[in-house]
């Protein structure tokens, strides 16, 4: 974890400070005190009120008010209810939730128990991806220790409240992080979303009311109860309270997990905490919200980060991925890279996402090959809008964001690809030309000999020539030329 001022640790408060395999160390830092107090001194409604007043919103991406969700689940009458912790964390490069589970597993267990008390559920399920063996190991130890201490199980803290937690393993499909898909996956069905409503709070796991929250959301709960709603809501912006953990990555000097109060600007994150762009290059864009977030530019650097501002600028909070790009990055390739991910991860249930994302990818590919047309650009935009407007779940509803936001903010790059056949950042191989500077070339023939496709011709001791159509842009010639006679255009 990068340590810098401007950070506040709430969700990550214990990570790195306690031995996660020892419940006593958690207890020493006021662990399970919030649960004890809730069970013995507060009614479920009072606890829910505190969470509501704190202004906490879901950290899994949607930003739904957490207290309200608890209340909705509480209000449904049912014999059995469930508390689910969403630890699927499928965004490439994201590891916020894993870090919390590895560094502070008890805080999640404690929060789930509090949730059980509030909603009337006696069973908790943690859906965790099987690729997180250390987190799973620590959760298992934590569950055992909590049971041993009577913090999970029957009659917790001597009250008649009983609650226990079990683990469920995900196979790593990104869409299984979507809550309805997650529930189907836990039920042994195909991991694909269903149309909401009904929301899990009405009809979730096995058709019973189910409260699904994200790991980081839970990690905020015990502190809020200990320090009060006022304290929490004093941090952040008007509609987004508290802090958010981000996985800062890309072309910044300091990469890693950070936790900053809502309202921090992108500039502060990238330049103060992130230490600016690597190798003194120029900042170009920042992708927030994971693979289906949007690319924001220079012009957005001073907006303060919160749920609503990010959406208003064409991106989103997502689960907290933040990837910084510099002047060398091609925005069309960037969009293509993210679409490649969504094409792989679409569940295939609805046609706009199943086929639309594939077509978006193919069109972006055509453009990066230099074969796109102006008409393609308008088709691309229409399709991106339709996929967003018609897809069944959050995956398809957001997957075109990288396309739309790069088209909005970097249209000139798209134009350069289709009109001039150029990639301004020199990233799109198909659009590069390797050229021999005839003045510098001594005719040593080395380049012609290394070219795997015989694209270089020329007499000995005479200037050589590269046939651009035959060239596969492997760069072998340029690497070999001892006279620096080969350059890229």
């Amino acid at each position: 974890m990068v340590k810098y001022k401007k950070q506040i640790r709430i969700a990550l408060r214990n990570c790195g400070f306690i031995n996660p395999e020892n419940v006593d160390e958690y207890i020493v830092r006021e662990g399970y005190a919030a649960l004890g107090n809730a069970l013995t001194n507060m009614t479920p409604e009072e606890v829910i009120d505190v969470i509501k007043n704190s202004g906490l919103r879901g950290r899994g991406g949607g930003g739904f008010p957490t207290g309200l969700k608890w209340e909705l689940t509480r209000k449904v009458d049912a014999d059995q209810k469930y508390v689910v912790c969403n630890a699927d964390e499928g965004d490439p490069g994201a590891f916020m939730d894993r870090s919390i589970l590895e560094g502070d597993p008890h805080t999640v267990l404690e929060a789930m128990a509090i949730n059980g008390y509030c909603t009337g559920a006696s069973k908790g399920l943690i859906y965790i991806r099987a690729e997180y063996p250390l987190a799973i190991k620590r959760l298992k130890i934590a569950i055992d220790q909590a049971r041993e201490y009577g913090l999970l199980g029957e009659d917790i803290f001597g009250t008649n409240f009983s609650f226990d937690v079990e683990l469920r393993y995900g196979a790593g499909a990104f869409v299984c992080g979507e809550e309805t898909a997650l529930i189907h996956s836990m039920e042994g069905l195909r991991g694909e979303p269903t149309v909401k409503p009904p929301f899990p709070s009405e009809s979730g796991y096995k058709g019973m009311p189910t409260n699904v929250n994200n790991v980081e959301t839970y990690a905020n709960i015990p502190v809020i109860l200990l320090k009060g709603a006022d304290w929490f809501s004093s941090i952040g912006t008007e509609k987004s309270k508290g802090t958010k953990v981000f996985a800062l990555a890309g072309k910044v000097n300091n990469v890693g997990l950070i936790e900053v109060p809502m309202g921090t600007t992108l500039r502060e994150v990238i330049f103060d905490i992130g230490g600016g762009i690597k190798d003194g290059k120029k900042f170009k864009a920042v992708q927030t919200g994971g693979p289906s977030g949007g690319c924001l530019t220079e012009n957005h650097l001073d907006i303060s980060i919160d749920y609503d501002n990010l959406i208003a600028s064409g991106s989103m909070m997502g689960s907290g991925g933040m990837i910084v790009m510099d002047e060398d990055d091609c925005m069309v390739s960037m969009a293509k890279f993210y679409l490649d991910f969504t094409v792989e991860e679409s569940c295939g249930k609805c046609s706009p996402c199943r086929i639309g994302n594939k077509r978006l990818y193919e069109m972006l590919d055509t453009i990066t090959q230099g074969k796109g047309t102006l008409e393609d650009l308008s088709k691309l935009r229409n399709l991106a809008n339709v996929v967003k407007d018609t897809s069944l779940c959050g995956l398809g509803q957001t997957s075109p964001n990288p396309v739309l936001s790069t088209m909005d903010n970097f249209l000139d790059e798209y134009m350069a690809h289709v009109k001039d056949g150029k990639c301004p950042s020199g990233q799109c191989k198909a659009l590069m030309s390797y050229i021999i500077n005839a003045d510098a070339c001594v005719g040593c023939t080395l380049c012609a000999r290394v070219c795997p496709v015989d694209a270089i011709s020329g007499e000995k001791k005479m200037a050589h020539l590269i046939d651009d159509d035959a060239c596969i842009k492997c760069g072998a010639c340029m690497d070999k030329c001892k006279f620096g006679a080969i350059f890229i255009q």
Partner: protein
Amino acid sequence: MDLVKLTIDNTPVVVEQGTTVLEAARSVGVDIPTLCYMKLDDLEFENKPGGCRVCVVEVEGRRNLAPSCKTACDEGMVVNTHSVRAINARRTVMELILSDHPFECLVCAKSGKCDLQSLAQDLGIREIHYQGEKSHYKGDESPAIIREMDKCIMCRRCETACNDVQTVGTLSAIYRGFESVVAPAFEMDLDHTNCTFCGQCVAVCPTGALIERDYTWQVMDAIVNPKKRVIVQTAPAVRAALGEEFGLEPGTLVTGKMVTALRKIGFDHVFDTDFAADLTIMEEGTELLGRLNKFLEGDKDVKLPMLTSCCPAWVNFFEHHFPEMKDIPSTAKSPQQMFGAIAKTYFANQLKVKREDLVVVSVMPCLAKKYEASREEFSANGDADVNISITTRELAQMIKNANLKFTDLPNDDFDRPMGESSGAGVIFGTTGGVIEAAVRTAYELHTDKELARVDFKELRGFEGIRSATIDFDGLPINIGIAHGLGNARTLLNDIKEGKSEFHAIEIMACPGGCIGGGGQPYHHGDVTVLKRRQKAIYQEDAGKSIRKSHENPYIQKLYTEFLGEPCGEKSHELLHTHYFDKKKKIEI
């Protein structure tokens, strides 16, 4: 019920809470297009995955477009089904679906009856702006069903039919994203799964992805072969639906025209499966009375209730799913196979032709009959009792190939002896019909009294599970009826748990019975089509001079000349069968 008020395309609408926007729109004449959606009232079929997204509409105040088939009406909702945004989205989605479809319409078995094709026409799609890679899957050809999954649009209707309605569970969505498709696990061939070949997946598939295996050319080959005598039998449900293929209203009886058409096509003898249905009643009715008598005599081992066995998909179902109960169903063969067995012995002798030179063709509403005809136990020395089984749809195709103007054809009668049937044989075509036919005969055989009324209205209907008690002159007989294999499963589970009070149960695999079979003209989601076919069946029964199987003079003659007595030795050899435990087959 609470009511909600909303406006759809500026029209105020009041509907019950819980009504979808689609239903509300249709109630005021706004016809929102759909593709994946299919609902069959009274048949427990509801496919609403919300996956195709063709039915999207604009709802004021909502961020994205709403799938009207899956969106409940809310108080004050303002819906616009034809805004530029909605139309553009709908057309773009449709273009996407088409962009991943093989353009084989001109030679596709579904052409002209394909929901995808007609939707493309309705939307006026003239160009597909988004082209790219298409998905490809392994082909699969079983004796009954052909799966060409390149044509699958992932509407999931087949999955709903197979899993929710039939509870067979052969089909499910596999793979992900662009590669996803509905298929048996591991993309196995249907032949190697627990598929019952009920064909209900075929009946609801909007495209040419699932179709019957076409045997019309084998039939033509036989007809033109001078060495072969080719005879045909037509199942009861065929006559109540065939007309639909020629633009006639559902429920139009075309028995006479069908007979004329079959003669013109060139069959040497045109017979009726109804004759064999009467024969089935003689055997099955006698078997039932035998079991009942043993039961009344205090025999604890007798298997009751007795289950009917005339539906081959149902037979496949219990062989795969309830093999431990395989001694409960009647051992009587299905009418198709009884017909084949008698044709290849009794009738071949009469004609003085070798059984190999007699080709028995059946026209069935059913795909499982194709499979049934290929079962090894229904053949002698490699020669099948029924050589070729075609569907109602295939017969329509043959009629078209023969350039016959079907609607103008005169009426004609079936040939004798195997074309004569009672009304009891006709009603085999609908749910409730087999057991009603059995009751008509069993009652008279048991009581030696003539029935005061032959219509047992209490056994008729459309509900998935029905029951009635019939008074056999002081002996109350409890009868159960199930159509659709999911309903059959419910009754079977009751029997397994010893909770069943029934003496006899009729089971048909297809919703509605044979009238709703997998080989019938497509109903395109309109249940009234099935109901009208059912009405036609009862109408044909009512018009028959003979209403009870045991009064069919040609059946009586068959017993005196050839079979001896029902359930006698010869009958056992020719008309009864045995069942297999096929559970192990599903394991791979």
